[in-house]
Structure formats: structure tokens, C-alpha cells
């Protein structure tokens, strides 16, 4: 490998965002005919590094060489001209335009959508994609949108491809298909970089793996010469045991009963279809499913944020009284005396206000208390101090805006506030997304503590390994329907994975 000239050489790259150093003197080589897995925990600077290659960010320091020649990438246009194409995690597509219009965006020459459509069809045939060039993006599913993104890069003839966590939104079958395409591209002599933190994808797909930690380059090696344990060690810096506590539930009693829940989104598409289950106190109910299969709607329906078409959600009190939660908003649920906490997926967009400080964010849940016209500032302030102390939030002070904190600390603030109200039901969505391993364990511990206190926890997760180790029962959603509910102890990853893609998880053969 050393005798080849690298397609890309990044030398001594440093990028800062205000006080945060996202990349610190990183060195990286990318070769043609090779799939490189760029591995690292969330927040380790993988995306930032690749964004500098694709011209989204400009490095503060360092040099980039393409095929041995010094280049300066000032904009995505420069990147295209150098044959670099990146598929971003958040799709870069214009909703009101069609697939073809999006694909030809930014290219020179006369606008000829018919010719473009022809070329798109040819690419689709070559790689086995399905794209309708005339379809508007807002009518597409996530995986269709991703396909458009990939076609867009191929259409431009990119020979250095970067994919930022491409499998997060795909079903296993779609993932397999994508991987086959990527292997084809490698065999064509293209350089492929895939950003991921999923170990099995690294092992399955990549030829070489490069690891980043806290913005620094830790090392790279051929995938064949390493293993999951070693890579994890490199990612987190010290050996960790992938082991999560799972105490036996104590005295589980039904707490939330969902029957025949059906939800449509604003476009009239059914997101939840006749969902029924019970969540028990003192138990963690895991929700598994491909992203966008109704997890968000399910939690939001329980929390009173999502209009429901049919069905019922009952809250069962300790004394057996039942309260219907449907048709109530979060405020009236709170006023009924149901203490329901919700850690949403979008922490800074929904759970917290980024521009407010810790104390003001604590107030979000409690600002209505008391009869006075005015807000009580003392209680939230001391709550913030308690949370900072107990959960070891690293922050300059409680009057720092939360957007300045790192992802893990933001999540600690959010979870800290949500459990401060002594909930009986705790809903969490992707509670450890973007957190480093240590923060993740803090969150697992907190969730387990709540379980021990008899809280009914509903935990929506994306990492099946974690779900299988943490949850007492796992409810698998597939296309908005309940594909099955399995006990967490002894469940097989493969079975759950199948249930995610096929109702009941049984194959036709």
C-alpha cells in the first residue's frame, strides 16, 4: 500500500469552532481502489474532517494534496472539480425540486432535463437503483432521498466518494445493496470513505480503518489485521467492557396501556398502525426499528404532542385508576397529576433551548409553578447546580448557554431535568446518540436508577447491541406496525433485525 500515491493526503489539519477544537493536527491518507472506514465516536471530528475535503469548511491550518499535488479546497465547487463527492448525513436536497433537478444542480452547461433523466436512468441501471427523475423530493422516503444523493455524486463522475453514516436510515437489505454498490465502486478504482461508528460495518465492508478520537488522529491499519476490541480501544482510549447492567425488574405493574394506536402525519401518511402494548413500572421497554418507522410518533403521542387518529393510551395509577392520555396536551397531562418525562431525540431543537443558560432551561418544566405573574428563578437555579454536581456536567457555570456545552453534557442536563420531577413514566429517544462511551454509560446508569425506582421506562434506541443488553422487553416496530415483542434476555440480534424489516420476522421461504 505504501508504494501507491494516495488519492488524498491530509496533513496537519486543524479546525476550530470558537473555543472547540474539532480537528487537531490530523494526518490522513486515502487511496484509490480501497474502502476506508473513518471510525470514531460521535464528536470525534470525523464529519468535520471530511467536510474540509468536500469544501464545506475551510481548515484553520494544514494542507491537502490530491494525487500528490497541493490543492486548496475553498468551496464545494473546488471539491467537485477535484473529483470529490460527499453524501452528507443530512441530505443536501431541495425539497420543492425534482430528483433530476437536484442531481444537475451546480453543473455547468445548458439545462436539459431530458438528457439528464436519460443519464440518471443509465446510472440507475448500472448499479441497480430506482429513481424517478421527475419525482419531487418532498414526496420521497429517506432511502429514496439517499439514493438520489448517491446518484448525484455518481452523475458528476466523482472518483473520491465520502459517505457520512449512510446506513443510519437504511434497512439491512438496503444496507447490503449499498455495500454491494460501494464494493463495485472500489473495484472500479474509486476511493471510498465511509464515516461510521458501527463496528460490524467496518469489519464487513472496509479494507482499511482510520480512527479519530477527540479530534486527533489515533492511527490506521488494514481491517484484516485488527478486531472490534482493538478498534474500540483506539476509539475510546482505554479498554472498556461492553457490558451494561440489567437488574431484574422489581414488582412490574402495568403503567401505560396502548391499544390500537393509529397516527397519521400531516401529509396523511400512516405512521403508526394499530399499535398495542403495555409498558410496566420498574421495567425498561426497548423500542427497536429502522429509523422513521413510527418511533418518534409513538413517543410523541404518549407525551401528548402528536394528534392521534384512533386508539387509546391509558395511564394506570398505583391504585389502579385509569386516565386517558389521548387528546391531552403536555400541560393538561401534567395538570392531571401524571408525572411523565420525555427525553426527545432533538435535544437542542426540542428538549432544551440552546441560547438559554442551564438555569433557564431547568425552568422549562417548572416555570408555571406558583400563582405569581412572575417566574421563580431561585428553584431552577439550585436545580441546575444540583444537576451539574450530581451528573458531573462539565460547564463553566450554570449561566452558560447550553449550546456551548458538548453533546454529552447537553444530554446530561436534559436527562437531569427530566428525572428531577420524579417521573412515573420516562420516555427516551436515542438517549445516547452522539455521546462518547463514558457519557453513554452515565445515561444507562441513570435510566437503570429510574427503573429501580419503579419508573416505567420506554427506551427508543438505534444500536441493537445496546437494546439487547439494556431492555427487559423489546418491542419491534416495522413500518408503523408492531412486528413483535420479545424478552430482552436471550433475544438474538439476527431475529430482532429480521423483525425490523419484516412483520413477525419470518421469511417466506
Amino acid at each position, binding site marked *: 500500500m505504501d508504494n501507491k500515491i494516495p488519492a488524498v493526503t491530509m496533513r496537519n489539519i486543524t479546525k476550530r469552532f470558537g473555543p472547540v477544537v474539532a480537528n487537531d493536527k490530523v494526518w490522513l491518507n486515502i487511496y484509490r481502489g480501497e474502502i476506508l472506514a473513518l471510525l470514531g465516536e460521535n464528536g470525534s471530528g470525523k464529519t468535520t474532517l471530511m467536510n474540509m475535503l468536500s469544501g464545506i469548511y475551510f481548515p484553520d491550518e494544514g494542507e491537502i494534496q490530491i494525487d500528490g499535488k497541493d490543492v*486548496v479546497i475553498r468551496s464545494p465547487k473546488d471539491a467537485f472539480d477535484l473529483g470529490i463527492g460527499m453524501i452528507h448525513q443530512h441530505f443536501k436536497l431541495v425539497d420543492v425540486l425534482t430528483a433530476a433537478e437536484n442531481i444537475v444542480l451546480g453543473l455547468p452547461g445548458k439545462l436539459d432535463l431530458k438528457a439528464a433523466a436519460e443519464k440518471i436512468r443509465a446510472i440507475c441501471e448500472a448499479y441497480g437503483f430506482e429513481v424517478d427523475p421527475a419525482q419531487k423530493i418532498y414526496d420521497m422516503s429517506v432511502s429514496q432521498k439517499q439514493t438520489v444523493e448517491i446518484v448525484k455524486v455518481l452523475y458528476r463522475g466523482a472518483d473520491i466518494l465520502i459517505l457520512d453514516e449512510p446506513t443510519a436510515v437504511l434497512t439491512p437489505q438496503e444496507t447490503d445493496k449499498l455495500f454491494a454498490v460501494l464494493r463495485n465502486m472500489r473495484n472500479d478504482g474509486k476511493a471510498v470513505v465511509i464515516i461510521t461508528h458501527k463496528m460490524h460495518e467496518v469489519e464487513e465492508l472496509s479494507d482499511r480503518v482510520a480512527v479519530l478520537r477527540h479530534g486527533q488522529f489515533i492511527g490506521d491499519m488494514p481491517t484484516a489485521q485488527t478486531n472490534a476490541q482493538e478498534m474500540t480501544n483506539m476509539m475510546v482510549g482505554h479498554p472498556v467492557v461492553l457490558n451494561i447492567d440489567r437488574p431484574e425488574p422489581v414488582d412490574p405493574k402495568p403503567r401505560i396501556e396502548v391499544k390500537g394506536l393509529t397516527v397519521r402525519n400531516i401529509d396523511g401518511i400512516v405512521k403508526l398502525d394499530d399499535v398495542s402494548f403495555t409498558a410496566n413500572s420498574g421495567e425498561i421497554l426497548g423500542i427497536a426499528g429502522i429509523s422513521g418507522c413510527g418511533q418518534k410518533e409513538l413517543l410523541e403521542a404518549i407525551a401528548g404532542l402528536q394528534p392521534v387518529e384512533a386508539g387509546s393510551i391509558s395511564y394506570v395509577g398505583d391504585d389502579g385508576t385509569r386516565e386517558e392520555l389521548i387528546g391531552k396536551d*403536555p400541560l393538561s397531562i401534567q395538570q392531571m397529576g401524571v408525572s411523565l418525562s420525555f427525553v426527545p431525540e432533538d435535544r437542542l*431543537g*426540542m*428538549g432544551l433551548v440552546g441560547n438559554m443558560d442551564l438555569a433557564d432551561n431547568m425552568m422549562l418544566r417548572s416555570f408555571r409553578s406558583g400563582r405569581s405573574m*412572575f*417566574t421563580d428563578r431561585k428553584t431552577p437555579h439550585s436545580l441546575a447546580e444540583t444537576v451539574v454536581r450530581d451528573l458531573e456536567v462539565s460547564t463553566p457555570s450554570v449561566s452558560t448557554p447550553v449550546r456551548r456545552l458538548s453533546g454529552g453534557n447537553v444530554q446530561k442536563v436534559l436527562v437531569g431535568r427530566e428525572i428531577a420531577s420524579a417521573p412515573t413514566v420516562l420516555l427516551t429517544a436515542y438517549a445516547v446518540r452522539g455521546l462518547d462511551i463514558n457519557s453513554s454509560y452515565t445515561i444507562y446508569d441513570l435510566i437503570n436508577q429510574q427503573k429501580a425506582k419503579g419508573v416505567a421506562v420506554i427506551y427508543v434506541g438505534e444500536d441493537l447491541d445496546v437494546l439487547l443488553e439494556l431492555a427487559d422487553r423489546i418491542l419491534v416496530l416495522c413500518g408503523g406496525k408492531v412486528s413483535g415483542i420479545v424478552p430482552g434476555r436471550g433475544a438474538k440480534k439476527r431475529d430482532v433485525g429480521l423483525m425490523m424489516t419484516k412483520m413477525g420476522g419470518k421469511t417466506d421461504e
Partner: protein
Amino acid sequence: MNKKNQAPLFYVSKRGSIGWVRAWAVRGGAVLLALLVNGVITSLVTGENPLQVYAAIFDGSFGSSRKVWVLLQNLSMLLCVSLAVTPAFKMRCWNLGGEGQALIGCLAAAACMICLRDAFPNWAIILCMIVSSILAGAVWAGIPAFFKARFNTNETLFTLMMNYVATQLVSYYCVVWESPKGSGQIGIINPNTHLGWFPQIGPYKYLLNILVVAVVCVFMYVYLNYSKHGYEISVVGESERTARYVGIKVDRVIIRTMLLSGALCGLAGLLLVGSTNHTLTPTLVEGRGFTAVMVSWLAKFNPVWMILTSFLLVFLGRGAGEIATNFGLNSSFGDILTGIILFFIIGSEFFINYQIHFRRSGDKEDNAHV
């Protein structure tokens, strides 16, 4: 070496934060720079010594006790409208309809003075004026707010259009109530009976307005910073989703806040008619609804800083007017000077929020921070 291989001369990045002292130093510097430019321009146009120009600006506001009172009156009216639009802005609801809301308040007050003068005693007329103008302003803001809350109709454009509906409505009534007949103007209302004229405090014609606005200013400061409503406004402004998540009824907050916004604009209109001008014209508000947008934004929606920013604009406006009369220029010259100062202040915000890094050629490792 082709162009492609050259690093850009400079690039821009967002600042972490900048202390408020430095931030205000930047803004102050921008104002000074703008004054310098204005002085030069005025000297060029008039051929006067720039120092004389500045003296004239100062004279325009502080030259006599009458001028000071006019300054304070204009300041209080501008501040009133600015305070009124601020809660909406803080909610990220661009209420550009302050002009129309204040004008409709003027109309309501004038209507009471004209239509009730033969039927009601003075105190009852004044009471009706207060109620009706505040209500009218609230309704004028409430209509766009309702559609914003219900259908997410673009409030910037809606409130903008409402301004001109109000202007035409006032033009209509100016003809209906014209006096004398055929003039198309209303003139001073109840010039002899003084019905509906607000009482004067001692010899000070404008003191009442100033006191009322001072109260509004304190009220708004407390309301935005310490009340539950104010907190809700901040949360809705930062993120509607967060607001829904914690059970804030976003629709209700939008409508409530816009009603308050409109009501205070109506109050400004009431003061203009009842206390200051005792007449009604389609241009009575004098563009304050638009200037208020800038006052409020320049002060970062802080009612206390708004005293300063509205003072600045009124002071410059008065000063420019003085220049115009002293040096025989037409009064629109003031708008040009005001515009230039605004451009400088608006531009200066960039240097508070961003920093520029310059690169020296051939020395890529090293860069200077500005």
C-alpha cells in the same frame, strides 16, 4: 501558479462570544465613524466647517428648552412604538405593522373626539378614546396574528400590507370628517372646547406622554425579563418545538403577544392624537412604525438599551433637521444622514458576531486574528 492553488486571502468564522463591553465599543465606534462620514458629507454639500455641522446637530436637540422638550416628546413616541413591537420580535414574529397599528389607534381616538363630542362629557370621551384606540391597535395586530397562528401565514408581509390598509382607512375618514368642507383635512379637532384633549401637567405640554412611556418602558422590561409570559415569549422565539414540548400553547402565545404589541401601538396613536397633535392625518405616525423596527433590533430587544437607541435616532433626526434649516437644505437631508448611520450600525454587528482571519501569502501556518 494557477489561481486554484492559492489560499483565500481571508476567511470568516463565527466568534465564540464577545463581552458586552467590547460589543458596545464596536457599536459606539460605528456611530462615531458614521458621524465622521456624515460630517464630511454635510461639509461637502454645504461647504461649512464640519465642526459647525456637529454644533448644529447638537443644537438641534439641545439648543433651547423647547428643543429639549420636542426631543423628549419625539423620543418617547418612538420609544413607545419600539417597546410595542419588541415582544413580537422577541418571539421571532416580524411585526412590521407598528405603523398601521399606531395609525389605527390614532383613528380610533380621533373618532371618539369627533363623534362623541356632542353626546358625552369630557371625561367619558377620554375614557372612550383610551379604550377604543388600544382596542383598535390590538385588533389590527390580532388579525395577522390569528392567521399566523392558525395557518402560518407570513406575518412580515401581512403586517406590512395592513399598514397601507390603515393608511387608506385614515385617508377615507380624513375626507369624511374634513373641516372645513372641501379641504380634505381634519385640522385641529375641538379647537375651542378642547374636548378629548388630554390634561396638561403644569406648563409642560409633553410631560404626560413622557411619563406614560416611561411607565410602559419599565413595564416592558419587567414583563419580558421576569414574568411567565415573557419567559414563554422567549421560549417560543427560540424554538416553537421546545415550546410545544413543555406544553406552551404556541398559538395562544403568538396571538396574545401580538395583541399586546398592537395595543401598545394603539396607545402610541392615542398619545399622538389625544395629547400631542389633536388632529388626524394619514402620516401622523411619521414612519415611527418602521424606525421602531430598527430601534428595537439595534438594542437587541432590550427595553433599557432601546432608550439609548431611540435617543440616538431622534437626536440625529433632529440634528439633521437643524442642519437642513441652518444651511438651507431640504429636510430630507436628515433621512440620508440617518440612513448612513443605520448602515454603519447594521454593518458593525458583523464584527461582533464574526471574526476575519487574514492569511499572509506563503505563510499558511500563521494567521492574524482580527
